[in-house]
């Protein structure tokens, strides 16, 4: 049932287990508008991660006492399917999921014009169907697209990606085994507006120098992902436009 740990995660030619270079992202696939009922939705595959996001709102905040007079209440739930991980996960939210829901919400909010919709709520639901390291970053990337798909006005898309340290080398976009066996993991979310870092966490051990490099490497990763996000949205609007004009 459990994975076996390989002897080396990176070979002498700086090639990682899955064949990637040190600064290379995992293969990604993004789709928007994938769910029927949600106001906005998106799907991402990043390596073996498979994650769905849906947005409902803006709508009247419920329960009412949560409504904010001058802005929308942005809510977020990050949740893992029981079969998304090696050992079945109970569907009840774990402490980890509660924390991630919070930091993901705080990573998205700087991008959203919440002041446009006072007294409403905007609910973002993220479901991790399969997990392979870096789910919180992929969750932010895909949730940001779901918000855009719902037509929520935003300052920009938020892209997210981790950098880290594995067997002494700094690498981009760690997968599950690199995350578990590596020396450090630094997930980061970024939006081009204001060059803003909207999520930043770190686990492990990094010198100040390494830390600076890792932050920059993660930002570069986010920029690539941001490009892919824009393409996906554009492609969808072109498709919609064509459909409308047909």
């Amino acid at each position: 049932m459990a994975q076996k740990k390989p002897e080396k995660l990176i070979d002498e030619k700086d090639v990682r287990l899955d064949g990637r270079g040190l600064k290379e992202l995992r293969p990604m696939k993004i789709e928007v508008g994938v769910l029927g009922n949600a106001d906005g939705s998106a799907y991402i595959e990043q390596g073996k991660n498979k994650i769905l996001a849906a947005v409902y709102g803006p709508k009247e905040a419920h329960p009412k006492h949560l409504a904010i007079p001058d802005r929308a209440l942005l809510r977020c739930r990050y949740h893992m399917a029981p079969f998304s991980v090696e050992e079945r996960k109970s569907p009840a939210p774990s402490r980890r999921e509660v924390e991630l829901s919070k930091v993901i919400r705080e990573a998205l909010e700087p991008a959203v014009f919440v002041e446009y919709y006072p007294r409403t709520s905007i609910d973002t639901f993220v479901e991790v169907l399969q997990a392979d390291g870096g789910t919180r970053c992929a969750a932010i990337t895909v949730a940001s697209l779901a918000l855009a798909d719902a037509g929520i006005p935003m300052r920009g898309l938020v892209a997210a990606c981790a950098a880290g340290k594995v067997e002494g080398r700094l690498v981009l976009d760690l997968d599950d085994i690199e995350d578990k066996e590596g020396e450090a993991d630094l997930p980061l979310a970024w939006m081009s507006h204001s060059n803003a870092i909207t999520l930043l966490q770190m686990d492990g051990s990094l010198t100040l120098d390494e830390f600076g490099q890792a932050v920059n490497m993660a930002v570069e990763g986010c920029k690539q992902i941001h490009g892919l996000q824009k393409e996906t949205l554009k492609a969808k609007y072109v498709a919609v436009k064509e459909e409308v004009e047909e």
Partner: protein
Amino acid sequence: MKYPIMIRVKQKQIAQLVSLGKRLDGRGLNDYRGIQLEVGVVGRAEGSARVRLGKTEVLVGTKIELGEPFPDVPNQGVLTVNAELVPLASPTFEPGPPREDAIELARVVDRGVRESKAIALEELCVEPGKKVFIVFVDVYVLNHDGNLIDASALAALAALLNTKMFNYEVKEGKIEVKPGYKPLSVKNYPIAVTFAQIDDKLVVDPWLEEEQVMDARITITTDKDGKICALQKGGYGYFTTQQVLEAAKIAKEKAEELRKLVVKG
């Protein structure tokens, strides 16, 4: 249970159509919506399947783990079906512990699998009274457009058929994992067929708009031999004996069609 005006207007319209043998989306009374089935979609799961039934979408994943048997059946594995109506599937689903609807859904799917003896639970015993395999079947509703039961039961069966277990040997009470996998042994193929009663007529595979106006619902699960293995009436209306017997006959026929989608050959 609340019938706002909008729903009542729709109810009238749907009922009129049904009385003419027609449905809002163009189907005949005994037609299913289009079904798409994909298996092995979640590699981390021991088995998985996604079913799209019209716009209804359900993902089922299975996990197999070691655990303890129930004390009253010490030499049988354990089957556990759980259903999550995750909030991305519908504006009416909310985060939190499973509500009545999710529990009923899980239990109806569970009964189909259990009563048809689809899983040979005795084969999942490792050490009587101490160690057995637990088969978790997690139903994950991704989009709700009606008839979650049939979609979930179909996906659950497909996921079980897709489930593989590692090979193992028991040596001195300890499990030794051996290379390779073997498929989970599935002995029967239960298929659930659900009817809505609208204005005294039965329609197969109700979609959301029909569910909102139906009087009652009946689900009949039949096994590979055409025997009924589970049944569930739902909703605030009722059925006559005549309707129940008619539904059973149709359910058997429709189940045979649906079974072919999951069980090849």
